[in-house]
């Protein structure tokens, strides 16, 4: 029998909080992890595909984004949308309110815009349709976020589940709307069933308006969270509700107000992905393009810092835009493989934020004298 009493078992490694890394070091870790992720993606694609090599992966990834000025515009537009949604989630997250309902708020905003367009387009002046669409999408998006906020503020209901549930209700609302409008039963609303008048104007090209709105939202949220009383209050509420109470902040109204802003911005995104869409203004259950969830990741990766969120949105948009080109170049006809690669890339980026915050210390092996 072995005497186990005297053997001190030490874990192989332990994790401890790291001191703040310098900006340079942080950057190096981030850049390195992104490149590692891409390299692994490249290797996996090369193995999976009958043709292609790791170099081609990088080439086609960049080709997908920088092939033409048009694809660059597309990426910037997608990035502006994702950034807007991230900015919508930012104040909620700073307040430790986990708004997982971005998708639903976008859908409801888009739905409101579509309802305005289909009922008022051509009936009243285009300017008024646009104005009403803007107001309606903001209000409806805000309502969709405020409902769970009220329940959180008054009854302390779990906001993650509540906002998540609101996503599905929003989807059902869109399905219902389509079923009412599209009497043929195809469950697809097509662009030509909507009036041309009363859509958002084309500024410069089909992408610029969205990019400008995204920039404005970014600027607004940057200032709001950093330099305003409201932004300060929500940060305090996020840190400690009791502290907030004692310094005289009305916690309940801060929660509701913040979510109203969050939802209104998502509503604007909904408006942009429908009425502002040059080729197809019609809403569908997939109109939110899952941005409500992707933005959770970008906001989190950006550590709730607007500038860092901008960077992570750029990265995610870049990968999303480049991957279809990779799929095409590698003759991968299924989507699952490229989704796997995107997943790996995300995983690496998330893992690197762990490395930045914590350090892993391996236990030194002690040699016992016999």
């Amino acid at each position, binding site marked *: 029998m072995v005497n186990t009493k005297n053997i001190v078992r030490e874990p192989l490694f332990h994790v401890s909080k790291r001191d703040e890394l310098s900006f340079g070091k942080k950057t190096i870790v981030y850049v390195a992890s992104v490149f590692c992720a891409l*390299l692994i993606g490249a290797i996996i694609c090369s193995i999976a595909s009958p043709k292609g090599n790791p170099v081609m992966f990088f080439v086609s990834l960049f080709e997908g984004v920088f092939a033409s000025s*048009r694809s660059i515009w597309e990426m910037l537009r997608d990035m502006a949308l994702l950034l807007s949604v991230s900015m919508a989630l930012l104040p909620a997250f700073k307040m430790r309110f986990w708004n997982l309902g971005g998708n639903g708020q976008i859908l409801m905003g888009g739905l409101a815009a579509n309802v305005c367009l289909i009922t008022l387009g051509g009936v009243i002046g285009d300017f008024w349709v646009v104005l009403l669409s803007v107001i309606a999408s903001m209000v409806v998006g805000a309502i969709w976020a405020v409902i769970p906020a009220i329940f959180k503020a008054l009854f302390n209901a779990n906001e993650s589940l509540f906002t998540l549930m609101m996503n599905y209700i929003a989807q059902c609302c869109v399905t219902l709307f389509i079923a009412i409008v599209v009497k*043929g039963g195809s469950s697809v609303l097509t662009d030509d069933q909507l009036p041309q008048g009363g859509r958002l104007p084309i500024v410069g090209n089909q992408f610029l308006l969205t990019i400008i709105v995204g920039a404005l939202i970014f600027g607004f949220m940057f200032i709001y969270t950093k330099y305003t009383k409201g932004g300060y209050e929500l940060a305090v509420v996020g840190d400690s509700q009791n502290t907030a109470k004692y310094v005289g902040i009305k916690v309940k109204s801060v929660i509701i107000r913040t979510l109203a802003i969050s939802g209104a911005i998502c509503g604007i995104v909904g408006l942009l992905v429908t009425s502002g869409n040059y*080729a197809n203004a019609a809403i*569908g259950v997939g109109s939110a393009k899952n941005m409500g969830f992707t933005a959770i990741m970008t906001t989190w990766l950006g550590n709730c810092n607007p500038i860092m969120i901008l960077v992570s949105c750029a990265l995610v948009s870049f990968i999303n835009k480049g991957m279809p080109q990779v799929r095409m170049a590698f003759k991968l006809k*299924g989507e699952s493989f490229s989704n796997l690669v995107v997943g790996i890339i995300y995983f690496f980026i998330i893992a690197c934020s762990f490395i930045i915050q914590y350090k892993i210390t391996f236990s030194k092996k002690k040699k016992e004298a016999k």
Partner: protein
Amino acid sequence: MKKLLTLVLTVVMAVGCCFGLASCGKGDPVVALICLHGEESSYDKNFIDAFEAACEAKGLSEDQYDIITGIPEEGDDCYNKAVQFASSGYKAVFADSFGHEANMIKAAKEFPEVHFCHATGTKSSLSLDNDATNDTPANFHNAFASIYEGRYLAGVAAGLKLVELYGDDITDDEAKIGYVGAHPYAEVISGYTSFFLGVKSIVPNVTMEVKYTYSWYDELKEKASALALINNGAKLVSGHADSMGVPAACKEKNVPNVFYNGTTTEDTFVIASKINWQPYFEMMIDGALGKGTIVKDYCGNLSTGSVQITALGKAAAEGTQAKLDDVKAKLISGEIKVFNTANFTVRNAKADTSAFSKAGAITMDADGHLTAYLADVIDVGDYVGETNVIANGVFEESKHRSAPYFDIVIDGITIGADVE
């Protein structure tokens, strides 16, 4: 260490970019395919396989065609991809999903020298009517196939199976079949009606229950619907949706199954019908290369090879092949018309008072047979029928437009409650 890694990777990137510049001079691109989903979906796989086969048959090298998957119907992704293909030299672009149509028309207007082709769409029939306000550009094309002929043949095989199982004196209870449909619109209704009429040509007292899933791909719901149909007494189940849900349910309950767009190796598999897009894609490639024209609103059929039935499965009845060959020849010669109005009645549809009733468009004689029907052939979003599609005692499906417009629920078919 990390710096070293960064350095190494930067070098890799730099080299990659050089290769990228070097690889720019590939063969002239010809055709591109835009798919809603990837080859995980049997619907898209059917297009992808046919597209590759057509490109190979026409001698295109791999550089000359491209397939992009996962382009949603919502938003403008399809338009942007179509424009990207057009501006990088492709001569023809094909999109495979109904919701892509508006995107493709928009792109077609901007690139008049490039062909934009679209499956299952309805807009090209507009231009046939010389309606100037709704004209689609000449370089925009719709395509479909008279798949109802294939489904009719599959129905004949199903009828023979019922006769094999229950004999010639088949009772009403034994003559019950089931059908799982995706959405309640013409493409699906036309499909199950032709299938039903195929069965009816063998088993005159057949009745059919239809359940909708309201999704093109929902494996669990398709399976649950099929099981519910079997529980309601269906002796054979077919369907029109893109997953393997129905065959799985049939296997579980050991009930014969008629499939669509693919085959299964199960003992319960009778036969399947499918649209073969290869003939269309070959025409499209010829058109793209300037060797031929692309038909504005193309409808492939049995004789073009666009409509096919698969090899018989293990569950097919004895003598099925001979009968199918006979019926197929008669369909091609025109001796048999699938939607011959003498073969079905529409009393229930005429008596329908629900919101989606087609009663207003139906004119029938004392026996309940259709004598006139106003179908919504010219799709301007009004859902009001304007074209009488009955001629010489036949409902002329896919004649006025390639996409189906038979949307009457005929007598003998009942719509069952949805399965949750």
